[in-house]
């Protein structure tokens, strides 16, 4: 058997984004002046807060549907669940579980709708799901701003707007704040980093989710998704219901995004009703790409590397910006600029690779035809 030759340039190209972030972080960390203990604690907290949300992106990638910008739909469902649980005064971990259960039917419906639309826009899933998130945001605002309190009963004035219907800009989750994170109090003392608080229960849930994803890949449905992701026509010829498989992938992703949003918000301790969900998709996708994932390939390792690098940049950039320019806003703008830039670079790289592969295929075909002639 012929041994595959290691292509250094290809490997470098593949890991260019994580490498760039490692360099940025290596420059910014000493400039920021933050202690190792603080950085480690922040990273651990953010990993617990964001990892589940980012994991929800893996399944649509597996099914060849690219980066699911429609995860925002699940985030909205999670927020609706949390608003209702808060109004019913179900607190702590039971409140979170109830919010998750409430989010499931909403996520499934939105996922089905999104999946059906994406099946009509094959090959343009990312832009379609991105625009769809704006559309559903309008519906979400209609529900939360006008129907809650008037059609959907909302009792508490701390949640309702003073006019009698609609939800306030901020809903406090003080009764749920970090209840999951602190369910099993645990901290470790490391030689260089000092004492680090670990949100153990959240990490256990994330670990279970990782195991579920690994198991899912080996199931019949998982294999079908991979087949669909590689080549839809071949998968169809093999007897796989391509459309259904794609819809299932989006539904699973949306439901998981809803759960992820609930975990995220319990850590934050409040819901910014009209804005929490709007940016979450973008930043989760950016984090995944920073971890070395691409539009058509992502792994669990990419999720964790992405969270570490992306959030490390988020933590240190404002301070480093302040140290360099004397204005911390420069750092703030820099980190948002980098987030959008990394998505752009990934999309450009994906399109370039696709075109390169297509042209190589064309060349091969032309050569074969020449040989025959």
């Amino acid at each position, binding site marked *: 058997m012929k041994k595959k030759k290691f292509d250094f340039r290809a490997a470098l190209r593949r890991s260019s984004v994580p490498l760039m972030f490692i360099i940025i972080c290596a420059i910014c960390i000493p400039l920021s002046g933050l202690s190792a203990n603080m950085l480690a604690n922040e990273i651990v907290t953010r990993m617990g807060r964001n990892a589940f949300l980012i994991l929800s992106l893996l399944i649509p990638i597996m099914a060849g549907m690219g980066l699911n910008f429609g995860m925002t739909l699940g985030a909205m469902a999670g927020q609706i669940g949390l608003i209702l649980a808060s109004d019913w*005064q179900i607190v*702590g971990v039971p409140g979170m*579980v109830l919010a998750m*259960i*409430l989010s499931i039917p909403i996520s499934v419906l939105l996922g089905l709708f999104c999946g059906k639309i994406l099946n009509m826009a094959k090959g343009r899933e990312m832009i379609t799901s991105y625009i769809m998130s704006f559309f559903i945001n309008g519906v979400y605002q209609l529900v939360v701003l006008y129907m809650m309190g008037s059609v959907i009963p909302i009792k508490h004035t701390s949640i309702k707007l003073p006019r009698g219907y609609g939800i*306030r800009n901020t809903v406090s989750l003080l009764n749920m704040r970090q209840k999951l994170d602190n369910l099993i109090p645990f901290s470790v003392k490391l030689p260089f980093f000092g004492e680090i608080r670990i949100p153990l229960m959240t990490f256990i849930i994330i670990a279970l989710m990782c195991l579920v994803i690994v198991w899912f890949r080996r199931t019949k449905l998982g294999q079908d998704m991979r087949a669909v992701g590689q080549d839809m026509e071949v998968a169809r010829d093999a007897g796989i219901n391509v459309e259904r498989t794609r819809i299932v992938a989006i539904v699973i992703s949306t439901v998981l995004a809803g759960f992820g949003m609930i975990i995220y918000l319990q850590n934050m301790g409040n819901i910014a009703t009209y804005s929490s969900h709007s940016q979450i998709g973008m930043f989760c996708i950016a984090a995944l790409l920073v971890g070395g994932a691409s539009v058509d390939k992502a792994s669990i390792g990419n999720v964790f590397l992405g969270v570490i690098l992306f959030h490390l940049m988020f933590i240190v950039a404002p301070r480093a910006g302040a140290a360099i320019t004397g204005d911390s806003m420069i750092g703030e703008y820099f980190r948002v600029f980098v987030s959008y830039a990394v998505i752009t670079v990934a999309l450009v790289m994906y399109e370039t690779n696709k075109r390169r592969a297509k042209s190589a295929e064309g060349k091969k075909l032309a050569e074969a035809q020449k040989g025959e002639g």
Partner: protein
Amino acid sequence: MKVRKIVFRILALAILIGIAAVMFVIGRGHTIYFDNKTLEAEDGTVYKPYYKIDVLVNGEKVAKLGEEDRGMVSTMGQKFSMELHITPKKDSKKVGSAVKLEIPYNMDGIILNLPALLNGAAEDVYMDEFIPAVVEETGDEEEVPAGDEFEMPMGDA
């Protein structure tokens, strides 16, 4: 095959509804207000406050009440237990008392009058619903941007 699928789906739905119902019961949050205040019951009995009461919930001191004081704690579920360390008069010794209560599901906030409770008054005497005062709010809504640092002051883009 189809019947089995439907049965599994119904079963999954039933399990989810069951879990939600359990969460409704065990996760119901209440705010308990402890009053060490004078209370005059409808039958004319007057319950006078103690000199000092320390309230401990789950071993943690949540309120230290002097005469005519009020304290509070947030709790979850319908069963509530607390430990009271009572100093009846200025120079008297502390007396401990463990109290277990069933909290009504429909009440968000509950006021417990401790002197009445400790003197064996009926539930409707020592327990009352806390109804927050209605504050007139002007304007539509306060602009409070809250969340992660993902939100940038970059307009609506």
